[in-house]
Structures are given as C-alpha cells and as structure tokens.
C-alpha cells in the first residue's frame, strides 16, 4: 500500500512538471506560431514537420521513466478503437495525437451513422495504414436550420491516405470515417477552435437522413442545465438569468430558457414571450412562442 504522503508528493512533482511543460521552448513555440491572424496557414506549417512532437514530450517521457507515479499533463481519451491525447491546446487551436487500432477497426460492425462535427481540422497521417477516408457532404447550417427541412447528406469520393499526408476537413459541412486500415493509423489532428460551428450533426449512412443535432457550445449547454436547476430549486432572484438567456445567440437556449421561465413565473415571462412570438430570428422559436402565447392567453381568458 502506498502512503498518502507519497502520492501527495508525486502529485506535487506532476504539477511542477506540468508548469515546466507549458513554459518549455517547444510549447511556447506552438503558442507563438498560432498567435497570428492566418491560423490555418500556421497549422499547415506546424504539421509539415513533426519533429517538435518528440521535443515537446521528451521531458515528460523522462519524468515518467524516473517516477512511476508521474502524471503527464495530458487529457487522454480511450475507446475500443483508439487512444488519443491532447498534446497542445489554447483557445485557438488544439492538437491531439491519436493511434487508431487496425485490428479493432476490422472487427467493428459497419457504422450506421456519420458525424458532421462542425469543426475545421487539419490532420497529418503520420502512419496512414493504407486506410481510406469515406467522405460525406452536408448542407451548411444556417440560422434558420430546421430538422424538418434538413436535406440528406450525400457521399463524396473516398480519399486514399498516404503516410505524411496532411488532410484538411471542413467538418462544418463534411463528415468522414476511416475505413480499410491494414495497420494502425497514427495521426496528429489539429482543430481550429475559432472556426467551430455551433452544432454537430449525425446522419444515417444508408439514407443520408439527419438523425440528430447537438450543440458544440459548452457554455450554452451548461447554461441550459443551470436554468433547469434554477427552476427546480425555485431560486429567488433568478428572473434576470432567465430573461438574459432568452436573448442568447443559441436558438435552442433562447427557447429552453423561456420554457423554464414560463414554468417558474408565467406572468413575469409573458412580455418577453410576446416579443419572441413576434420577432425571434428563428422560425421554430417564433412558432413555439406563438403557440405557447395562445395557450397562455386562453388560460387568462378562462
């Protein structure tokens, strides 16, 4: 059994190493590279030569070899198909290093859906594994996008991957899946965060039909959860929060906030409900507000 004090000391060493990592020359060079207006050009330049990766992680590899309790300052994601870690991130760019298992890919059932993630990425296929990218195109998602009128996605020609290739995928209108890898696929995947679309979409491969939509906006998602909490907790003084969220850029949050507000204090929410029925920029929100306004006025008249 390891002493608690030993684990605390290991954690302190890991924190110190993380601070040194972010102050290191390779890390600062990446920050400097992406502090320019033409971020995509900077990403292309960074991915053109991947020698910096070894220099970036060398101190962490050394620390790990010296200290079995050392925790590298990386977020790691692992599923049945791949393991990946974020080696760099700032508000503009994140870069993940990922290994996709060809063996795991070979035994997976064929995917039923493809995701159009809403993110602009550039990926260097360090080892392409003779895989190919299956591609699909989806319509741009405008401010009045509606699931009811969404056009199906359509398959685009496959892309055969080569070792060292850098592939730009505009995930705001394009989905992709890796297929046919003969050996593990090793990638450096850069996401330009500032170009992220508000929503990710998932489509059925067989029919091209839209299956579901999810927000890419953590802030809006958190706000929606917290507003539901405020309603359930019957928190006094929360009116301003509901009112403010009905003016959010995210249409689903505007209406979500109005629903919560109506449920906690219909009378207070009524003037804003009238405004939304009249002038909300999203057609579905206007329709929902109009229908709800009729319900409220019917109750008032009763």
């Amino acid at each position: 059994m390891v002493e608690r004090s030993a684990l605390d000391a290991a954690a302190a060493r890991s924190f110190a190493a993380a601070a040194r990592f972010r102050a290191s020359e390779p890390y600062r060079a990446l920050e400097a590279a992406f502090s320019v207006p033409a971020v995509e050009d900077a990403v292309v330049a960074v991915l053109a030569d991947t020698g910096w990766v070894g220099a970036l992680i060398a101190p962490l590899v050394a620390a790990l070899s010296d200290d079995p309790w050392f925790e590298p300052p990386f977020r790691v994601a692992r599923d049945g198909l791949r393991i990946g870690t974020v080696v760099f991130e700032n508000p503009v760019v994140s870069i993940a290093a990922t290994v996709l298992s060809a063996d795991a890919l070979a035994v997976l059932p064929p995917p039923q859906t493809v995701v159009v993630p809403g993110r602009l990425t550039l990926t260097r296929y360090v080892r392409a594994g003779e895989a190919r990218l299956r591609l699909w195109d989806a319509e741009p998602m405008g401010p009045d996008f509606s699931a009811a009128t969404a056009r199906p996605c359509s398959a685009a020609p496959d892309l055969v991957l080569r070792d060292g290739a850098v592939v730009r995928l505009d995930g705001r209108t394009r989905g992709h899946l890796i297929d046919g890898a003969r050996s593990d696929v090793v990638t450096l995947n850069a996401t330009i965060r500032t170009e992220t679309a508000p929503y990710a979409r998932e489509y059925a491969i067989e029919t091209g039909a839209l299956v579901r939509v999810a927000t890419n906006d953590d802030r809006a998602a958190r706000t929606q959860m917290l507003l539901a909490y405020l309603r359930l907790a019957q928190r006094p003084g929360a009116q301003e929060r509901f009112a403010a969220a009905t003016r959010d850029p995210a249409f689903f949050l505007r209406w979500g906030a109005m629903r919560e507000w109506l449920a906690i204090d219909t009378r207070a929410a009524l003037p804003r409900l009238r405004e939304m029925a009249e002038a909300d920029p999203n057609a579905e929100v206007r329709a929902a507000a109009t229908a709800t306004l009729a319900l409220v006025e019917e109750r008032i008249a009763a």
Partner: protein
Amino acid sequence: MDIFNLDINQIVDLGTQIGTSGAIRTLELVGDDVFDYIIGVAILIYEIYPNG
C-alpha cells in the same frame, strides 16, 4: 395579479431538438474532463433507465 404557472411539460418544444454538448461523439478530443464526465454519467443512466 398572479395568474398561474404553466407545467413545463405543457409547453411546446422545438421541432429541432438539440442535444447537449458532447452528446454526439466525434473523432476530435474536445471539451473538458468534468463536463465529459457529467455527460458520460447522464448517458449511462439513460441507457440503464431509458424510461426512468
């Protein structure tokens, strides 16, 4: 004048339902650990108790 409060289940929802951040898994590593963890727990509960 205090008229009434609507039951939230009586209030119409949008035709275009929007899942929360992280609800569609993508190839990118994004978001933060705590939020991903919350979403993971929510998905797990939904899968165990879909009608709960």
